[in-house]
C-alpha cells in the first residue's frame, strides 16, 4: 500500500514537473513583455514588481507591427479559403463520380502529404521570379493553398464517402444539376469535415516563417514571424519589446487552441498517422 502511494506521488510529481517545464517559458514570455529593461535584470523570475507598457509602445512605434499583423491575417484567411474551396470541389469530383483514373488521381494528390515543401523551394523561387509574383503576398497564398490541398482532400473525401449517395441523386431528380446538388445538399452537411481541415491548416500557416523568408523582401509585405525576425535583428537587446511582439503574435493561435485543442490534436495526429 505504501509503495503504491509513493508511486502515485512520483507519477504526479513527474507530470507536474513537465507541466512547469512547458508553462514557465510561456510565463517568462508574458512577464518579460511587461517589464522594463532594468526589470529583466532586477527581478528576472516572476511577475514584474512594476508593470510597464513601454515594450508594447515600442513595438508599434519602431516597426510596422500593425501591417505585419494585417498581412498575417490576410495570408492566413486567403490561403484557408482557397484550400477549402479547391478541396471541396476536388473531393466532390473524386467521391461522387466514377470515372477512369479516379484512384490514380486520388493517390497522386495524397502523395503530397509526404512531400516536405522545403525540398521544392528552389524551383518555386525560379517559378515565382518568372511569373512576376516574387515579393508578393500571392506567392505565399498560392504555395500554402497547394500544400493544404492533399490533407483537406483526404479528410473531405473520407467524409463524403460516409454520406449516402441518394442525397445527390434525389436532388438531381428534383431538377438540380450536380453543381447545385453540391452547393445546397452536400455543402451544409460537410461542415464538420471542412472545420477539421481548417483547424489543421490554420496554425502552420499563421506561424510560417520559412516561405515568407524566401519570397518576401519589402517591409510592408512581411507577415508576423518574418516581421518579428527583422525586429529582433535590429532591436535585439530591447527584450521587453521583442517579447511584447511575441505575446501579441501568439494570441490568435492561443485563443484558437483554448477552444479547439481537442479537435486540433485529433486532426493533427490523424494526418500524421495516415500521412
Amino acid at each position, binding site marked *: 500500500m505504501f509503495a503504491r502511494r509513493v508511486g502515485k506521488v512520483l507519477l504526479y510529481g513527474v*507530470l507536474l514537473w513537465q507541466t512547469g517545464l512547458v508553462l514557465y517559458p510561456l510565463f517568462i514570455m508574458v512577464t518579460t513583455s511587461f517589464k522594463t529593461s532594468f526589470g529583466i535584470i532586477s527581478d528576472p523570475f516572476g511577475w514584474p514588481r512594476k508593470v510597464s507598457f513601454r515594450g508594447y509602445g515600442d513595438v508599434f512605434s519602431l516597426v510596422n507591427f500593425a501591417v505585419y499583423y494585417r498581412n498575417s491575417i490576410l495570408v492566413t484567411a486567403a490561403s484557408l479559403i*482557397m484550400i477549402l474551396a479547391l478541396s471541396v470541389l476536388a473531393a466532390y469530383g473524386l467521391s461522387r463520380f466514377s470515372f477512369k483514373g479516379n484512384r490514380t488521381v486520388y493517390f497522386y494528390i495524397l502523395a503530397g502529404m509526404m512531400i516536405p515543401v522545403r525540398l521544392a523551394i528552389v524551383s518555386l523561387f525560379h517559378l515565382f521570379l518568372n511569373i512576376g509574383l516574387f515579393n508578393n503576398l500571392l506567392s505565399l497564398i498560392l504555395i500554402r493553398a497547394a500544400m493544404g490541398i492533399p490533407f483537406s482532400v483526404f479528410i473531405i473525401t473520407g467524409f463524403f464517402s460516409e454520406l449516402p449517395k441518394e442525397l445527390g441523386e434525389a436532388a438531381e431528380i428534383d431538377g438540380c444539376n450536380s453543381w447545385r446538388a453540391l452547393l445546397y445538399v452536400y455543402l451544409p452537411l460537410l461542415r464538420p469535415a471542412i472545420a477539421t481541415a481548417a483547424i489543421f491548416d490554420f496554425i502552420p500557416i499563421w506561424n510560417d516563417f520559412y516561405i515568407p523568408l524566401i519570397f518576401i523582401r519589402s517591409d510592408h509585405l512581411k507577415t508576423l514571424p518574418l516581421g518579428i525576425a527583422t525586429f529582433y535583428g535590429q532591436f535585439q537587446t530591447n527584450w521587453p519589446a521583442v517579447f511584447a511582439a511575441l505575446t501579441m503574435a501568439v494570441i490568435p493561435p492561443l485563443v484558437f487552441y483554448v477552444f479547439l485543442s481537442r479537435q486540433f490534436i485529433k486532426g493533427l495526429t490523424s494526418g500524421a498517422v495516415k500521412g
Partner: protein
Amino acid sequence: MYGKKHLTPWLYLLPALVFYTVFLAYPVFGSMGMSLQKWNGLGPMTFVGLANFRRLFFQTPFDQRFYNALRNNVEFFFLTMLLQNGAALFLAVLLSQKIRFSGVFRTVFFAPFIISVLMVGYIWRLILNPVWGVLNRFLGIIHLSFMARPWLGDPAWALPVIAFVNAWQFIGMPIIMFLAGIEAIPEELYEAARIDGCNEWSMFQRVTLPLLVPVIGVVSILTLAGNFTSFSIIYAMEGTQAGPYYSTDVLGTLFYRTAFSSLSGAPPEMGLGAAIATVMFVIIALSTLGWFWVDMRRRSA
C-alpha cells in the same frame, strides 16, 4: 450529353489538380532538375551535369561544410529521439495510468506546438542568455553556478541545447501518438502478464514495448523528416551561420545559406543548394521506404 457527363468530374478536380501540380508536385522534381544546373538566382542557367554533387561530396570547402552538416543532422536526430521521443514514451506511459486530469496534462504538453518555431527560439534565447537569462541566474541561486555556461556559445552544448528546445516544443505529438498506441493494447494481455507474476517494469518490457513498435516506427520517420528539414529553430537561436563554428549547422541551414544568402561572401548558388535539397530528399525517402519494407516483412512474418 454523354460527353458532358464524362467531363463533369474533371471540371471539379481541375482547379485543385492544377494548383497542386504547379505549386507543389512539379517543383519537387524541378528542384532535382535544378541540381544539374548552375544558377545564381538572377542570370541565365547553365547545365553542368553532376558537377554540383561532385563539389558537394569531394571538393573543399563544400565537402567540409556538407559532411559537418550531415554529421550534425544525424546527431540532432539521435538527440531528438532521446530527449523528445524517449521522454514522450515515458510520459505517455504515465498518462495511460488511471490518473486524474489526464486530459488537462495532454492539452498542456501539446500547447507549445501552436507557437511559431522562430518565436520559441527567441523565448529560449532569453532564458539561456548568459547575462539576462534565468537559467544561469537560477543555477547561481542554488549554488550550482559552476554548471552555468554560455549555452548557445559553447560548441559542445549548442546542438544538444537546440535539440532540447526543439523537443520542448514538439513533445506533445509523440505523446499523443504513443498514448493512442498504448490505449489500443487489449487489457487482457496485461491481465495475463499480471497472472504470470510480471511487475510494472516487465509488463512494459514484454507487453507495451513490443506492441508499440509500429508507432515507434512512424514517430521515428516523422522525427527524421522533421529534423532533416529543420531550419527555423537554428536560424532563431544561432543565426544563418549556425554558430558557434558551424557546430549547429544542419542540412537545412546549409541549404539556405548556399541557395539564398550571400552572407558568406560568395554569390547565392541555387544549383548547389538544389543538390543539397536532393540529398535531403533522398535521405528522407530512403528511410521512409526502408521503414515500410521492414514493417511489411514484420507483418507477414
